[in-house]
C-alpha cells in the first residue's frame, strides 16, 4: 500500500545514483577516513540528501520560519568505556555539542539513545548516565529525552550511545568550505592526539604507560569567544575526531578544491603523544581528538581569532598552523622548517602501529 504521504515527500530517490561499490560494510567504513567518506558520499548522500547544494558538514543547518537552527547526531562506540579523562557518556555529550559548535551553533538540547548489552552491570550504566549529566551541565546544554534498547549478550560491546542535538546559529557566523580563499589562515585550538592515544594505551594491549588523558570537553566557549572577536572572518570549522586533523583538513581541501599548507613545527603536540606516536610509528595528525577544533580564518581576522581562543579557559595552546593556497589543489601538504614537504593524506582505516 503506498504511504498516503508519498506525494508530499520530496522525491529524493528518483534517479539517485549509488556510487558506492563495495560489496559489504567493513571496519574501515566506520573509521572516519577515505572509506567512510566513500560510504557517506556514495550511498547515504544520493539516497538521503538529494542534490547536495553544500558540502556535507558535521551538523545540518536549517531555516525554520526564519530562525536559523542546526541539528546534528553522533554515535559512540568506544572500548574501554572508561578511560583517563572521561568515558563514553562524556564523549556522547561533548561530541554532539562540538559538532554543533563547529557548525556555528550553540547547542540547546540533546536527546540520547542507549543500546545496552544484556548483562551490563547497572553500576556501569549509572556511572555513564551521571557522567552525561555532569558533562551536559558543564556544557550548558539540557538532555531532554531519549530511548533505550537492550540487545543480547555479545552484540553491543557493553554499550553504544547516540546523541542528537539541536542548536541555535550564532549570529554573524556562516561557515562553509565554499567561502574559503587562498591566504586564509588555519587555526587549531590546542594539542592534538590526546584522545586517540589515551584510548590506545587504555586498551592495555601495547603495554605502554603515559600521563595522558582524553581531551574530551565542549569547544563551544572557545568558538563563542572567537565568534565575538572575529565572527565575520570564520570561514570553516571542524572538530577533528576519528581520522584526526589530517582527515578534517583533507575533507576541507577536497570540498573547497584548494590546497592546505601546514607548518608542521607549529602544530602543538604533547610530549607523551609524541613519544607514543614515535614508538608505535603513528602520525599524530591521524589520531582522534575529542576536545579540539580546527578553523579557517580570513587573514585580517586571524590574530584576533587566535587571541580570543587563547584568552579562553583551556585555549592557551591554540596556534596558527598554516594557510590555504591555490596549489596543489585538494591536497594537504606539510612542511618542515628546513623546507622539505610531504603530502598528508587521509588514512584508509584506523591508524595501526608499525615496526618497520
Amino acid at each position, binding site marked *: 500500500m503506498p504511504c498516503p504521504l508519498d506525494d508530499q515527500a520530496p522525491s529524493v530517490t528518483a534517479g539517485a545514483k549509488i556510487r558506492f561499490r563495495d560489496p559489504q560494510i567493513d571496519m574501515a567504513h566506520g573509521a572516519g577516513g577515505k572509506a567512510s567518506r566513500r560510504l557517506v558520499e556514495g550511498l547515504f548522500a544520493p539516497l538521503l540528501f538529494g542534490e547536495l547544494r553544500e558540502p556535507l558538514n558535521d551538523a545540518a543547518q536549517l531555516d525554520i520560519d526564519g530562525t536559523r537552527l542546526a541539528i546534528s547526531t553522533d554515535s559512540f562506540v568506544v572500548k574501554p568505556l572508561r578511560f583517563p579523562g572521561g568515558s563514553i557518556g562524556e564523549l556522547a555529550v561533548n561530541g554532539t555539542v562540538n559538532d554543533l559548535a563547529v557548525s556555528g551553533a550553540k547547542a540547546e538540547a540533546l536527546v540520547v539513545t542507549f543500546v545496552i548489552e544484556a548483562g551490563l552491570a547497572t553500576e556501569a550504566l549509572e556511572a555513564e548516565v551521571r557522567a552525561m549529566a555532569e558533562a551536559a551541565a558543564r556544557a550548558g546544554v539540557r538532555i531532554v529525552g531519549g530511548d533505550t534498547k537492550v540487545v543480547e549478550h555479545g552484540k553491543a560491546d557493553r554499550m553504544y550511545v547516540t546523541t542528537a542535538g539541536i542548536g541555535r546559529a550564532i549570529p554573524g557566523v556562516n561557515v562553509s568550505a565554499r567561502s574559503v580563499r587562498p591566504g586564509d589562515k588555519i587555526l587549531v585550538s590546542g594539542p592534538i592526539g590526546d584522545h586517540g592515544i589515551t584510548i590506545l594505551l587504555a586498551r592495555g594491549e601495547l*603495554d605502554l604507560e603515559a600521563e595522558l588523558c582524553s581531551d574530551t570537553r565542549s569547544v563551544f566557549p572557545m568558538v563563542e569567544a572567537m565568534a565575538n572577536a572575529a565572527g565575520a572572518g570564520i570561514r570553516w570549522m571542524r572538530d577533528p575526531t576519528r581520522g584526526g586533523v589530517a582527515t578534517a583538513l583533507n575533507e576541507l581541501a577536497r570540498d573547497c578544491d584548494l590546497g592546505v599548507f601546514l607548518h608542521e613545527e607549529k602544530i602543538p603536540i604533547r610530549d607523551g603523544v609524541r613519544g607514543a606516536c614515535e614508538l608505535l610509528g603513528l602520525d599524530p595528525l591521524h589520531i582522534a581528538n575529542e576536545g579540539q577544533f580546527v578553523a579557517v580564518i580570513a587573514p585580517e581576522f586571524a590574530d584576533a581569532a587566535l587571541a580570543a581562543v587563547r584568552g579562553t579557559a583551556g585555549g592557551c595552546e591554540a596556534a596558527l598552523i598554516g594557510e590555504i593556497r591555490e596549489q596543489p589543489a585538494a591536497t594537504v601538504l606539510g612542511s618542515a622548517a628546513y623546507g622539505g614537504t610531504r603530502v598528508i*593524506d587521509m588514512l584508509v582505516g584506523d591508524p595501526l602501529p*608499525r615496526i618497520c
Partner: protein
Amino acid sequence: MRFVDEFRDPEVITKAADEIRRLADSARHYRFMEVCGGHTHAIYRFGLKDVLPANIELVHGPGCPVCVLPMGRIDDGLAMAKDPNVVFTAFGDMMRVPGTQGSPLEHKARGMDVRIVYSPADALTIAEKNPDRHVMFFAIGFETTAPSTALVLMRAKAKGVRNFSVFCNHVTIIPGIRAILDSPDMRIDAFIGPGHVSTVIGCRPYEWIARTEKKPIVVSGFEPADILQAIVMLLRQLNNGEAKVENQYTRVVPWEGNRAALKAMSEVFELRPFFEWRGMGFISQSALRVRDSYAEWDAERRFAMPGLRVTDPKAAQCGEVLKGVLKPWQCKLFGTQCTPERPVGALMVSSEGSCAAYYNYEHRKHAVPA
C-alpha cells in the same frame, strides 16, 4: 626528544644539504640506493628529495620485509588460524597485507581472533595468559627483528610454554643486496646501508660490496640529518674515486655488530636453502627457519599449511619496483588499480613500501606544476 630532535634541526639539515650541493658534480647523475624500507619511508616523510639537487636520484631497494613476502605465505599464516582455538598475532604492519582471501584485518572482521602486538614478547604473554588457546606469532623482519623473536622462543622453551609457536618469515639482507647487484639492469652508484639491521650484523658483512663490486656503502641512521650526512659521505667517496664501507650511524651501530644478538639467532634459527622473495624469485640462503631443537615452537611443523605459490597478477610490476628498475609511478597499476586502499601488491600496503610511501607522501605534490 633526545637523539632525535638534534638530527631534525633545520639548521643542521640546511648545512648538510648545502654541502651536498657543493660536492655533487653537476656533470654527473648519481643513483644511490637506500636498501632499507625504513629509509624510503624517512626520505618521503621528511621531504628530503626537496632538499637534494636534481642530479641525485634515490632508488628504493628491497629492504621491506613485508613487501618481499609472497602472498602465499600470508595465506599460510591465516590458514593456521582458521581453528578458532588459535590466536593470530602479528605486528601492525601485517594487518592490511592482502592474502588471496583477504588481509588479517579482513579475517578479523569475519570473526578470526587476530591481534596486533608491538613485540613478540607480548605474543608470548598472551599465550601465558590464555593456556587454553594456541597463540601463533607471524614473525617478519630482517636481522633487526630476528634476534628478538629468537629470545622469545628461547624463553618459551625455557618456561615450557607449549601453546605458542612462531611462523618464521625472517629474511636476511645481504642476499637481497646481492640480488640487486647481480641484476642485469642494475645501475646503482652507491648504497645507503640499513642502520638498524647493522646494529645486529655490524658493518663487516658489507665489505664485499666495496671490495668486489667497487661500490661505496655508508651505513646510515634514520633521521634527516643522518641520511643527508650519509649522502655527503657517499659523494666524498665517489669524488675521490674510493669505494669503502663507512659507518655514519656511529652513535648506535658497532662495527662488529651485536654478538649476543647473533648468538641468539644462531641458537634458534638456521638458514633456509632458498626462499622466495616476492617479485624477485627464489634467492638462496636468504631466509631463516626454526631449528629442529625448537621444532615444537615452529608453526610450520605444528600446523598444516596450503604452501601454495601465489603469483602476482602479470600487470603488477612489484619486482621491478623492488629492484629499483622502475619507479612506483611507472608501474601500470600505480594509483589506478593499485592504491593503499585497494593494494594489489604489498609495496602499496606496507607503510615503508616504496609505492605506498610515494603515494601517501608525494604523488599529489606534483599534480600541477608549481
